[in-house]
């Protein structure tokens, strides 16, 4: 602690007049207000209409309701575990440990897009696959993919505006067609991406769906060369169109039930296909597909062999933040990546502190 010795005061200037004292005190007040104001400005206190992490996540809660302990988006899901066998082909593109020949344990989660954890299964709903590859020395690769060839939005603002526009009307329980039309009119990229998505045949289930990274990333090889890439998990399970499953449709969780039955029958597999972008291919717009014929490299096989309810699955406490990347994989200039990371984290922080409520797919459901 500072010593109690006291230095001399002989050079003390004459005291200030009361008026001057007050003026200087006011000056100090102004300086401190400026410092505090600068921090409040940085914290967004003066921009109440700007889209922030909290406002974005509040949007999900507004549209889908509040569901304690669940993800704010992709709320309905099941946990899976398995492993990834790398064939070594990826090492030419990326120095990431995950691409060296060998096996890496994986925790994953299949889900439906949207914030309702009890929504009835429909074939049109977005199917998601989140994966966590556990590499050595605490390194991880996390990715969150969906069964769409492109994303419908190329900015966080567009995603949010669409979310709010598609909020069901309290009277009709359906989105207001005028609001949807207004959104589409001001977002040609959304219309274009929707056309591409609708031109694709939807598969019968989670097990025979292809899951796409949507955003571009960069692979960095041992020499430091950067390659723009997108990736896809291509199913080994043969494609079957949606209508073929008519017999099981009707029950609320029929797509999840089919996934459970399928994984109990035999382990499910996907090939991890890396698409290599060429100069000029957009890396900053997830709504635009890369041209046909781009080189694709099969870098290994994902095997998922166990399935669990969220209640017991380690996937429940994983935030599949797409920017948890190992050395050798880096973000691209896609403006969606940082907002995705931010919003996933906000959702995780909120649900981590909430009471966990049983999910739609219970532990007894996955025993079937």
């Amino acid at each position: 602690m500072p010593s109690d010795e006291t230095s001399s005061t002989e050079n003390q200037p004459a005291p200030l007049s009361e008026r001057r004292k007050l003026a200087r005190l006011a000056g100090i007040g102004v300086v401190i207000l400026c410092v505090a104001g600068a921090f409040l400005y940085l914290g967004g206190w003066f921009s109440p209409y700007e889209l922030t992490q909290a406002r974005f996540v509040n949007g999900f809660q507004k549209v889908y309701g509040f569901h304690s302990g669940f993800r704010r988006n992709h709320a309905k899901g099941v946990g899976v575990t398995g492993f990834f066998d790398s064939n070594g082909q990826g090492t030419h593109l990326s120095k990431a440990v995950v691409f060296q020949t060998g096996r890496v344990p994986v925790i994953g989660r299949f889900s439906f897009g949207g914030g309702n954890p009890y929504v009835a299964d429909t074939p049109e709903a977005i199917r998601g696959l989140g994966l966590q590859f556990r590499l050595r020395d605490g390194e991880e690769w996390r990715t969150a993919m969906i069964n769409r060839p492109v994303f419908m939005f190329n900015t966080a603002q567009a995603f949010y505006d669409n979310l709010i526009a598609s909020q069901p009307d309290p009277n009709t329980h359906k989105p207001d067609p005028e609001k949807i039309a207004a959104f589409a009119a001001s977002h040609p990229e959304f219309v274009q991406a929707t056309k591409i998505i609708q031109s694709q045949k939807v598969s019968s289930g989670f097990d025979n769906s292809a899951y796409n990274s949507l955003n571009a990333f960069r692979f960095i090889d041992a020499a430091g060369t950067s390659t723009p890439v997108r990736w896809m998990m291509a199913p080994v399970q043969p494609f079957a169109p949606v209508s073929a499953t008519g017999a099981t449709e009707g029950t609320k969780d029929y797509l999840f039930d089919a996934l459970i039955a399928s994984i109990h029958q035999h382990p499910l597999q996907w090939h991890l296909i890396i698409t290599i972008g060429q100069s000029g291919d957009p890396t900053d717009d997830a709504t635009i597909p890369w041209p046909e014929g781009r080189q694709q490299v099969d870098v290994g096989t994902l095997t998922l062999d166990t399935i669990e309810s969220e209640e017991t699955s380690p996937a429940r406490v994983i935030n599949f933040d797409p920017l948890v990347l190992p050395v050798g994989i880096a973000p691209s200039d896609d403006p969606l990546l940082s907002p995705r990371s931010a919003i996933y984290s906000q959702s995780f922080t909120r649900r981590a502190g909430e009471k966990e409520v049983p999910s739609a797919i219970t532990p007894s459901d996955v025993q079937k």
Partner: protein
Amino acid sequence: MATNPQQFPVSMRLFHWLVAAMVLTMLGIGVTMVVSLAHYHQLISIHRPLGILLLIFVAIRFVNRQFSTLPPFPATVSPRERFIASWAEILMYTLLFVQPLVGWGMLSAARYPIVLWGGLHLFPILPHSAMLYAALRKVHTVLAYLLFLAIIAHFGAVLVHTWIVRDRFFSRMAPWRVRAR
């Protein structure tokens, strides 16, 4: 040149301003990144390693302080002010030590990989628990506000002494050499 006995030793002044700059940067980044969408990733990528660097600097600063001779308080500082200043210093050091540890601890509890730069990771210091993460995440915010308030109070007190009492209080910690008089 003889050192001015009314000034803090060079090493203490160096650490004071270094840590001050780092803490203000960390608070600025922190308050921005929790609302930002576009810059979140960039900011948190700086926040993590800078927080650990700060923890290291605070530790060195604390050790250095134990081996330094402190200048006496000017006579213009009343006994009550000395008492407050002494406790404020303890509070400030506590916050500077605890805040980075809470940050490290909360990422550990969430089992986020704690990436510093490149492949360099920190090991987790707490068990995997979402509830613990949620609690520590709140503590991290509260401590940040406390630290900010402590800095503002410290800054205000120095300004009052320097501009109103005019006892050259600021010169004790001034980054430049001030001649004794």
